[in-house]
């Protein structure tokens, strides 16, 4: 198996199998022996990465920061080698009902804000930190109602955000948090009818998933993997369905300078300390 590049990914949806089977076939046709392991949650995947179960992790932004923190504890370096064009420069929004008397973030004081899964960067951590930085502390100055769909998947499953949006329309919460694209998507699918909501505030830009490697990754294989990713052309009909399934038009080089918002959020909410500590203890 020494010439096989192994990737770890999280099975947040059955289509994940279709996606990586397709990539495996395509990589195989281009001379790269590629295989993948699926984990049910990102914590197990990060742990498996450090235990040497595979070479490249398809990491959520939170899993990237978990890997970075564990690496730092263990004296290991981590690197983001590639990401989707659609992983770059995302924002999240906090929306209220169009007729709401909430005009400013300050008006959220004493109200209830619906968020996605507790570990969702886009629907929970980043928007809550954004509100906190504007002066209102979650669970103190306002109530947070978490729609915990599939915890451990870091919000990859859109269900939590949708539940929060539905709760907003049902009047169960006063505001709801979601990624910008889902505000548009929920409008299209009718969950948030056009004109029924107003964007109260928008977060700064942040990046999403990346392919992460540790310092002991087989360099030649990883280089070939990245080279092939960049050669995938949306114009190629054999490649296009794979890119469409995975939600991108082209692969971009990995960059790590836009995880600052999430980093501040997990520091503020102490999101990953316990996990990192547990891995550190296990290594002793």
């Amino acid at each position, binding site marked *: 198996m020494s010439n096989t590049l192994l990737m770890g990914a999280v099975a947040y949806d059955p289509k994940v199998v279709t996606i990586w089977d397709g990539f495996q076939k395509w990589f195989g046709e281009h001379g790269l022996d590629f295989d993948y392991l699926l984990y049910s949650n990102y914590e197990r995947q990060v742990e498996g990465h450090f235990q040497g179960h595979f070479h490249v992790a398809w990491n959520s932004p939170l899993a990237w920061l978990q890997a970075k923190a564990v690496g730092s504890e263990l004296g290991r370096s981590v690197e983001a080698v590639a990401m989707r*064009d*659609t992983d*770059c*420069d*995302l*924002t999240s*929004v906090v929306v209220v009902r169009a007729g709401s008397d909430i005009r400013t973030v300050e008006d959220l004081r004493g109200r209830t804000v619906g968020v996605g899964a507790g570990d969702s960067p886009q629907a929970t951590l980043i928007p809550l930190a954004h509100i906190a930085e504007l002066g209102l502390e979650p669970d103190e100055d306002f109530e947070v109602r978490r729609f915990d769909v599939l915890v451990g998947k870091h919000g990859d499953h859109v269900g939590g955000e949708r539940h929060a949006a539905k709760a907003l329309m049902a009047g169960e919460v006063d505001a709801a948090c979601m*990624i*910008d*694209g889902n*505000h*548009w998507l929920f*409008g*299209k699918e009718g969950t948030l009818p*056009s*004109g029924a909501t*107003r*964007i109260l505030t*928008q977060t700064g830009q942040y990046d999403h998933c990346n392919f992460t490697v540790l310092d002991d990754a087989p360099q030649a294989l990883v280089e070939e993997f990245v080279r092939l990713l960049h050669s995938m*052309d*949306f*114009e*190629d*009909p*054999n490649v*296009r*369905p794979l890119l469409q399934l995975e*939600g991108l*038009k*082209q692969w971009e080089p990995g960059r790590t300078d836009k995880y600052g918002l999430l980093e501040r959020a997990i520091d503020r909410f102490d999101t990953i300390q316990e996990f990192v500590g547990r891995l550190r203890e296990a290594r002793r």
Partner: protein
Amino acid sequence: MNHVDLQGLGLDEGGHLLVKRALAAIPVGDTLVVRGSSASLSVHLRAWCRAQGHEFEPSADGGVVRRGSAEVGRWRGAERAGAADCVEDEASPRWGLGARGCTVEAGGPEFDFPLRTRSEIWADDAARLYAQAVAAQWDPGSAIPWDAPFDLPDDVEDAVVQVMTYLIENETAALVIPARFASQVHPHYREVLQLLAVQAADEARHIEVFTRRALLKRARPGLSTTGGQASLKTLVEERDFAEATLLLSVLGEGSFLSLLRFLHEEAPDPVTREISRLAAQDEARHVAFGLSHLAEQVRSDPALLDRLEQAIRRRHDALAATSGLNEEVFDALVLLGAAGLEPLELRAGWQKVQALERDMHEGRRRRLARLGFADGRADELSSLHTRNFM
């Protein structure tokens, strides 16, 4: 500077159509300024551009979009599914269910339609026959005088019920067969597909009216025999489109044309008379398509005649040990022809059924000759046709 003003229209209420249209008018790599007063415009533009592969810079009232290449790239390598106004000799599995003449994106799934060459299925008058069939559809509820008063002697009513029972099982075979082939025809040959579909719909209607007549005065239909079902099974199991067309449409439904005309003339009641007339009209179209399609195919491939002849002989051999038309149906036809139980009446009825069988044979012989069989061969092959008529 290229720009588009959405005014108050949000991107979540159709505004993206205007942005798309404006982007289509500029080269890939050029920028478009999008302005509007919708409060969520800039947020939605960012998300939309990301999903579409365009670069985006927000501004206070919208933003600047740099056109990406993905949308253009998507249609590179796309293929035209033939021409809209003529049929190709062969239809590509890649065209799938696409409309004839449409542009098909490359990389889609291939569909396995076994009947995908013109020579296998096409008939030039398919479109005309289809239009005619659609125009001639009748409503079983209103076209038949269901409420017309009549009262038949028990023997005669029983005979009608037995004939209806026989017709129902035959028409069920005539529904199942075109329906099965319809699912095998490449949609490029749209008119053939439509014709097979309307043919199946015709038979569905026939089954309905024959059933309704059978149960008009009786609690249940009559008898179904092993011979009749064995004959139909050889038809239902026929896998070759040309051979099935010959056996079902040209020979079987051809014979039924004579039978339905006989029933129209000899029927003892107005309901049976009318359903026989209307069903015969439909059957005539089925026969016409079968003949037209096969005649065209024989013209381009004369060796097909040998194959068709073998199909008739094979079916004859397969049915040699069966009894053919069931006695109950035969007797029922005689009784309907006789219109009474007096010896002289029965003799007349018998003679009418003899004439019916001659008429059927003559019709089959004529149609086989039209396909190109020499007179003597056509006569012989007609006589090998199943004694069950269908």
